[in-house]
């Protein structure tokens, strides 16, 4: 290579951005197609089966309950510990309830849920679809006349859109419980009072804010998982790379989307 190193660097950056743009376009098309099948599949006589949606909902949602609950409980406690520690310097420990209530419902519950589902299911989706790609199962679906997006992605997307908000609300409750438990011990604040005050300061909008985010996260996890799976071409190693990418990009996607959403709605 006799190319000027600077030139080669610039060209690499260019190639990379081009690829990113292409990837974003690909995922957008995937999303549009999945929604198309969810909405119009019946009319085309190729419906998305409820049984499949239910099965995926158990896989990505119900089975995630223990881990999400545990993480949320710990997060709620952590917020209480940190909040009391910080507020004590102002002698304002009593305000900790407000802090916990708002940060749990608006930020931590949807984020924790999203990240854990990305880790659990984003990788599983990529691995499953990637394996099917290299074993020609995707081709087999197509020659049978089964659209792979309709059959594999649409039920997952529906399941994610149903379960992630539900998990987020569960996470809200468990995290608040964790916070309440710590406050009960540390500040001798009865749990009843904690929750009473919580529901005084919280407005519906706070919870809705978190739930809206969880819809976005559901889309991100599903698309990045499925997209990376479909793009596997080279063997078992390719599947491994796809699962790693699905988790890393899924988590980054969630955090970035969270930032943008919060910026746009909380000013």
């Amino acid at each position, binding site marked *: 290579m006799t190319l000027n190193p600077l030139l080669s660097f610039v060209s690499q950056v260019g190639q990379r951005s081009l690829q990113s743009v292409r990837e974003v376009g690909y995922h957008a098309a995937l999303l549009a197609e999945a929604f198309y099948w969810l909405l119009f599949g019946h009319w085309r006589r190729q419906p998305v089966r409820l049984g499949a949606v239910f099965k995926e909902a158990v896989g990505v949602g119900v089975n995630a309950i223990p881990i999400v609950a545990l993480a949320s409980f710990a997060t709620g406690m952590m917020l209480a510990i940190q909040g009391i520690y910080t507020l004590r310097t102002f002698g304002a420990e009593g305000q900790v309830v407000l802090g916990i209530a708002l940060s749990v419902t608006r930020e931590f519950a949807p984020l924790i849920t999203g990240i854990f589902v990305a880790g659990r299911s984003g990788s599983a989706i990529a691995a499953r679809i990637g394996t099917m790609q290299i*074993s*020609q*199962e995707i*081709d087999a679906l197509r020659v*049978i006349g*089964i659209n792979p997006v309709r059959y594999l992605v649409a039920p997952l997307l529906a399941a994610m859109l149903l379960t992630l908000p539900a998990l987020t609300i569960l996470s809200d409750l468990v995290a608040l419980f964790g916070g309440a438990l710590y406050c009960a011990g540390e500040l001798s604040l009865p749990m009843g009072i904690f929750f009473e005050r919580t529901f005084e300061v919280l407005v519906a909008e706070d919870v809705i804010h978190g739930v809206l985010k969880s819809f976005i996260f559901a889309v991100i996890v599903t698309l990045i998982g499925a997209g990376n799976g479909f793009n596997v071409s080279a063997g078992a190693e390719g599947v491994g790379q796809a699962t790693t990418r699905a988790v890393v990009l899924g988590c980054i996607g969630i955090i970035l989307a969270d930032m943008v959403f919060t910026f746009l709605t909380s000013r």
Partner: protein
Amino acid sequence: MNATDLAIDVSHLVTHYGSRKILDDISFQARQGEIMVIMGGSGSGKSTLLRHLLGLHQPTSGSIRLLGKDITQLSADEMYDLRKNMGVAFQGGALFNSMTVGENVELPLREHTRLDENTMRIMSRMKLEVVNLAGFENLMPSELSGGMIKRAALARAIVMDPRLLFFDEPSAGLDPVVSAELDELILILRDAMNMTIVVVTHELESAFKIADRITVLDQGRILMSDTVAAVRASSNERIQSLLNRKPRNEAINPDEYMERLTREIF
């Protein structure tokens, strides 16, 4: 040949992977009820041709008519309807690993028909009987041997009684007895259902046994597409070396050869 009884009519097919030309001006025909064997050395483009026949890729140019319909021009809905008349057994089987053998075989019925549950169950079991896998419907694909996977894949391919059956490498990796059984099965299927069957294979013996016509590919081009007798009698050097399993002994051009070895060395 009358155009209407052609089950498969490929004309002037050209395909690329990226910028590399893989198939060049491929034309051949098969009538309803014929068994067409596609042969050729490794890398000659057999699998690529098959994937185009299945409508998995869009060719660069040329047409592929299956049962009278040009699949390069069909809408998604028309293709969907055509696929009910096509069955495919992939080389590795491509059974769905998350389903039992029985569910695999039933899947096309579930997707394409509104038959009674009992009818579907009986149909899939009948096809498992046909391929000698009776009683295996509750096993998972991972619990099957290579030959059993191939047969299960065949059962899935024929469960809708398709008019076109595509079979990639039925004998590859199987012992001679099992592969002879599969050949027998292909003949029985054609005779009973008047299927048009396209088989991709390396195995000469099997090709001669089952084929009505053989299409020989070489480096992406058709060397010959004719009856078994005509292929056997061909005087083409490449075909003869394929038939007699002689290693290729092409004349070497010393300058070109040196160029290939020393390219990009400074």
